């Protein structure tokens, strides 16, 4: 059975917890108030879904404004994008909107989008209302999730849904299929003399 490989690019302003989110999903750890050398920049996750073997490659990106222009370098060839904002920080939600605009412009409908309102454990400090976020997501053809990396809420659902939609959009099959008729035949005239030399 062929394994399908998907590339998911992770976009979100610094400090919204995008790295924690992926760590929670891929390694089921949450790194709260402790020093850790576990790094989470690039994560692989293998899973079986609807009879498919799937490998997710999650690419973390630097969310600082000064690196904004570098986004396209990361999200080219991506099958999915996970956009993360902090529900207690309106600016981070505005950034998400900017990225969505960019992604749609550059990749059109080819990329599957999910938006995560992270830090749902800090509900009382919420400034981005859920209705507003969901309405926006629906507008741009994305799906919205409330997540808490800390409490491990909504994380699995988010990735599962994203994967399902990427699967529906068609993934990259990594298993190679033999082509019986080689298209290039440049070597035919030189087969004899070269083979002897190399094996000898």
């Amino acid at each position, binding site marked *: 059975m062929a394994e399908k490989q998907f590339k998911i690019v992770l976009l979100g302003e610094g400090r919204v917890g995008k790295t924690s989110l992926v760590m929670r999903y891929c390694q089921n750890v949450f790194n709260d108030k402790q020093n850790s050398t576990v790094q989470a920049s690039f994560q692989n996750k293998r899973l079986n879904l609807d009879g498919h073997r799937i490998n997710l490659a999650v690419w973390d990106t630097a969310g600082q404004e000064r690196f904004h222009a570098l986004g396209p*370098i990361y999200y080219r060839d991506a099958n999915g994008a996970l956009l993360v904002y902090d529900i207690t920080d309106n600016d981070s939600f505005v950034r998400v909107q900017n990225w969505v605009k960019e992604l749609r412009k550059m990749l059109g409908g080819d990329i599957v989008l999910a938006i995560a309102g992270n830090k749902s454990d800090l509900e009382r400090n919420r400034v981005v209302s859920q209705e507003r976020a969901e309405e926006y997501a629906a507008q741009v053809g994305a799906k919205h999730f409330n997540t808490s990396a800390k409490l491990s809420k909504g994380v699995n659902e988010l990735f599962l849904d994203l994967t399902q939609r990427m699967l529906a959009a068609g993934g990259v099959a990594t298993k190679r299929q033999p082509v019986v008729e080689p298209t290039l035949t440049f070597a035919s005239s030189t087969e004899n003399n070269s083979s002897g030399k190399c094996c000898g």
Partner: protein
Amino acid sequence: MGTRLNILSWQLQLQGGLDLAGVPSLHCRIYVLLLATNLNVTSFELKLMSRRCTHKLVGCGDTETNLKTSSFRNALRGWNVQYRDRDVNTVGAQTPDEWPPLKCHKSPCNHHVVDDRQVKHWAEFIQRGASKMTSFFDYEKENNALLNALRDEYKDLIKLISQSEASIFVPQSVSLENLDISRDLVETHLFYTNIDKPTQFVTQNGVLGTFNTKKTMLSVISPPQALVTSPTQFDPLAISPPTLFKSQRAQFEGYDCDRPKSPIHVLREGHITFEGEHKIHVPLVLISEPLQYNDCAWDSKMAAQDKKSKEFGIRKHHSASTVDLSKDRSPERSNSIVTGTIRPKNLLSDFLSGLNVPINTPFFPDSPEDRQTVTADPNPQPKKPTRTQLFPTKLKNAPDVLAAIRGFEREFLNNPPKTIEDQSKLFRSGLDDIENRILAHPLWKDAEEEEIEDAEESIEKYMSNKLFTVIFENHCKAKETANTSLTNRIHRLRFIQPHHLDIKPDIIDEESLRAAQKELNRLNNYKTPREKLYCIWNCCRAIYNSLKGTNDANPSGADEFLPILIYVVIRANPLHLFSNIQYVSLFRHPNKMITEMGYYFTHLVSAVTFIETVDSKRLSIDPDEFQRKFNGESSSIRGRSDSSESVVTYPPPRSDSVSDLVLFGEEDNVNMMPTQLPLQPTTVSTIVPASQSSVQLTYLDHDYEQLRVTDVANLLREYKMLAEENKRLRNMMGK
């Protein structure tokens, strides 16, 4: 000192492709030589440092183990160096093994340091060996039978030469074997050229002949003409062969000198000095075989020799059979003799061994892909010990696949596409074709995915090694501007400190930064895209390994990583960074670019793109301070430059920016591109070194013992920058 310098530069020419015209000092040549040695001969690395005019040789084995003197000898063994031991005064001790033992003492930093005298010793050995190798011409001058006969028997002819304008044809020794050196033969080889038509010559005994216009061949037009009737009675004043040029003009003009009949090859031109009462200096032309004409005394013997040669399957022309002499002749023959060959062993020549013995393997850690497979897969397959040998073994039994590989290599080398993009397409399609052959091949019918991947890797590695020169080195040359301007730009941004990128000071330690920098500086040392990717990955891993997680709910991710990488790239400023990036992105299998390796490569591209476009707005820095530092703080020539037209513009031209390699190429997306930096035009003042030194001389305060082999590339780069700045400065002063 002078001769040593010559010899070294000569050897470097042989290494091919290294232009040393811009490297003026002996010290640099030596260490470039050693660098070249490293790249072309063996993985052994050597470095020669110079400090206050003493040479220190600090060498490392490939895993930074201590210098083994035998490695140096092995490196030289490939050159087939021969030498004559002056003290013993015998020709012998032909192999480096028989050289005098080298004395080493241990230095505090665990390298073996070889002392100055030993280095001189080695240089002398190389020099002597080299002169031995190059001097077949000298050998001929000393030992050629014809010249010996002139010296010993026909001194009157030397006298004749001294009184006339004659030159000497010297048939190479091999061709004179079994021939009596008769007076007639010698006279046939003393010749005069026509001053009006330099291709025409007549010999002392009146043979007419002509060179072709390029003077690479000559042929005889006619046997001795009547003028010289009594060759034993010489009166040079009465008998002047050059008069034949006039009297036999018709013969000369009726002959097409560029379509010679039975041509004789010209091997070398030079001069020979005859000692005697008066030293005379005579032009000499070394030729492949003696001149002949009908009924000459040596004609029959030559014919017999030819017949014998044919029996042994040797071609008639000695020039062709004695390959050492003729085939190494440089196309532009010069009168100097400095054109011999020392051929380094081509370690990659054997394909199978190339596959079995991965180059530079000790430098590489386990592949991260392998590592992931093991950790992610709950039931990892035990690796077969013979996995790496599996492909070469099978390949032996698959001549068609092997032929396809060879055929593609040949096709590519014979007719490489012009642009690197087309090269990349051909490269990938050729590799795909080979891969398809493998997949369709019965031997690989039941092969596991991993085995196929190994095979692909092997082929990609082999092919990129083989095509490296055509692809990469040419690209570096073609894109020299892009490479240089990126290097220069990085150089001018070297004032950037961690806080400008908001890197928290406690997040990473200096040692890790240095390690990462070191890894990145190796980038240019490797040939295959995969190796280069590993190099990048190693750099990134060095950064990650030391990244301390921050003290809140945010583990370190790309937010922390990218700024540090940018900082490391600026500090490292690797050689040919632009070309390296383009090479990897175009020649690495696209499937591999989605993996962790590809991810870190993308980070590097991203870092370089940032560097290409950065301005004060993207740094935590005061705009004025940025401009000032970016433009260099020297104001000494500023007044002058304001009126000057000689404005050098950075940043690099858009079409050659790294971001173009990976971004979307369409025009309407341009506004999404990182905006090009509205830099002030770079003026003369900016490329003039700042009052102290704008070239970062990292090693200025280093002692040689602190230096590692891996620093060589950096040293060379810094040297080049220094030389460049110096050149520019001088040019500007000239204006």
